[in-house]
């Protein structure tokens, strides 16, 4: 377990974070900028000293103001990947990687890390000669070689452009899946979190607003101001069940139906998390025919959100009686009235296949058993 209960006054900002997370998988700290995400990570790393509180990782007390314990950062064995890489400019890539490496290391070997991150060809170079994505990979390798018990990542992709982000993301997934290293991941990008996170911690004004699975928290209406209203949507768990090679499509199964998406180059049985934006869902009160949309799911309206302007958001259940699957739809108030939509009303939810691009998908662990 990782237990954090800290208080810290930072100018006029008050951090009062309290959270428990498992010592496995990816725990994402999500929130807009200035909500205290980085401060929590820094306190965990020992780079920010809380005024009061306790930090315990795997039974080891790292900080306890009541007992006067404050383990210095170098003794905490927590790897830290910073937003701006922070490579040492006067060392080569190899020198950077070996900076924190221990001789009698229990963690992965130098060669294993270099292979995992694909940085063999960079070893002799200086940080100044690396691209942003390469720098970040070296920074990850450097943190790994210090054989940490927990890896802290503070928006490691934020300073990168889109192609670079897509270059790094698979490596972070490999840390999670192959090294089984617990990761605390700070981000304000829901896309990254859908791909990576097991546990989601929402931070708001220095406090933990909610903790739970990505699916649960994104479907909660009261959290939309935090999870992002424009980006609002639901995340559903599916399993890759089939490929339709002649049309270049893949089928993702969830309780209650099959979602057709553009072909994913992944083996059958892969658990996949799909994010469906509320604005990409169309509603029909009768089973639609003569329509180009292939994804039509029978379900019912569960809840109507308070309308905002001309729009209204509806929470739908397209799952089975045993396993509900929540989906959100955003339509105009006029349409809502004309279709006489109200809680309990049966509907068909339509999702355009092409609205789901690669940003919408994320692999996750342990999902196969639940959905299969």
């Amino acid at each position, binding site marked *: 377990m990782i237990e954090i209960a800290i208080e810290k006054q930072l100018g006029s900002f008050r951090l009062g974070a309290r959270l428990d997370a498992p010592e496995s998988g990816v725990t994402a700290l999500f929130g807009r900028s200035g909500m205290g995400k980085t401060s929590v990570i820094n306190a965990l790393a020992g780079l920010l000293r809380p005024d009061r509180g306790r930090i315990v990782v795997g039974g080891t007390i790292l900080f306890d103001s009541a007992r006067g314990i404050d383990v*210095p950062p170098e003794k905490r064995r927590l790897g830290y990947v910073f937003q701006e890489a922070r490579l040492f400019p006067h060392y080569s890539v190899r020198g950077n990687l070996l900076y924190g490496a221990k001789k009698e290391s229990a963690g992965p070997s130098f060669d294993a890390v270099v292979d995992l991150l694909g940085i063999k060809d960079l070893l002799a170079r200086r940080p100044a000669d690396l691209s942003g994505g390469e720098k970040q990979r070296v920074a990850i390798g450097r943190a790994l070689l210090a054989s940490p018990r927990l890896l802290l990542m503070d928006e490691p992709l934020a300073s990168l452009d889109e192609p670079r982000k897509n270059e790094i993301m698979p490596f972070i997934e490999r840390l999670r899946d192959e090294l089984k290293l617990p990761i605390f991941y700070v981000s304000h990008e829901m896309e990254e979190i859908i791909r990576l996170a097991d546990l989601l911690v929402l931070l708001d004004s220095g406090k933990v607003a909610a903790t739970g699975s990505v699916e649960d928290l994104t479907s909660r209406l009261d959290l939309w101001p935090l999870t992002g209203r424009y980006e609002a949507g639901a995340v559903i768990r599916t399993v890759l069940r089939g490929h339709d090679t002649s049309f270049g499509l893949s089928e993702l199964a969830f309780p209650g139906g099959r979602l057709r998406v553009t072909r994913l180059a992944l083996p059958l049985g892969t658990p996949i998390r799909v994010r469906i934006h509320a604005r990409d869902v169309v509603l029909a009160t009768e089973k639609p025919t003569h329509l180009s949309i292939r994804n039509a799911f029978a379900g019912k309206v569960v809840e109507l959100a308070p309308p905002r302007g001309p729009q209204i958001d509806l929470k739908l259940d397209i799952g089975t009686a045993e396993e509900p699957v929540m989906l959100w739809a955003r339509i105009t108030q006029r349409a809502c009235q004309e279709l006489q939509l109200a809680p309990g009303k049966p509907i068909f939810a339509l999702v355009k296949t092409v609205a789901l691009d690669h940003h919408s998908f994320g692999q996750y662990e342990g999902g196969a058993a639940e959905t299969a």
Partner: protein
Amino acid sequence: MLTPLEIEALELSLLVGVTSIIAALPFALACAWLLARRDFWGKSLFDGIIHLPLVLPPVAVGFALLVLFGRNGVIGAFLYQTFGIVFAFNWKGAALASGVMAFPLMVRAMRLSLEAVDQRLEAAARSLGSSPWRAFLTVTLPLTVPGILTGAILGFARSVGEFGATITFVSNIPGQTRTLPVALYTLTQIPGSDLAAWRLAGLSVALALAALIGSEMLARRMGHRLRGLD
């Protein structure tokens, strides 16, 4: 090409300059670090005292050294009785006077360089298991080297040109304290030595210029290497 008198003055100046800078370097670096990285009560006063030699008349500094480090001075007497070190009227005294006068210049250069080192790199070093001391030695210090070199060479140039504090503190003794500027002053007091004085003045200019140009080149090369641009 150079007369024995000129060689003697030049050698003495180099000895005094190099000794003063090497001896002052660790203290200057410590002061620069305190000013760049620590906040403490009386920091402005501390900063002011370090800069005093830059703004005081050199004669006043020489007088203060005479009072403090003379054989009967508070510190001088202690040093003589404990370690047998004497500063009064020998080349070590000249080095002390030059070092004190060059000190603020050295601190300024090093402080600027230390402030330019990204402290977040030190935090990264700590997160990788380095003690504060190892983080300083492996990250901060190497990145400060250009500033340390600039400070040392600027200090050296200042030290070699030192006159007022030296002549007040350790007088004008041939072979002991008669450095280039002091020798030049002596010549200007003797009628008909204009040519010899010109030659010494030229020598001083050459030495100072060489130090300044050398410092500039070295700093640029080190800067490039440290940023990995070579």
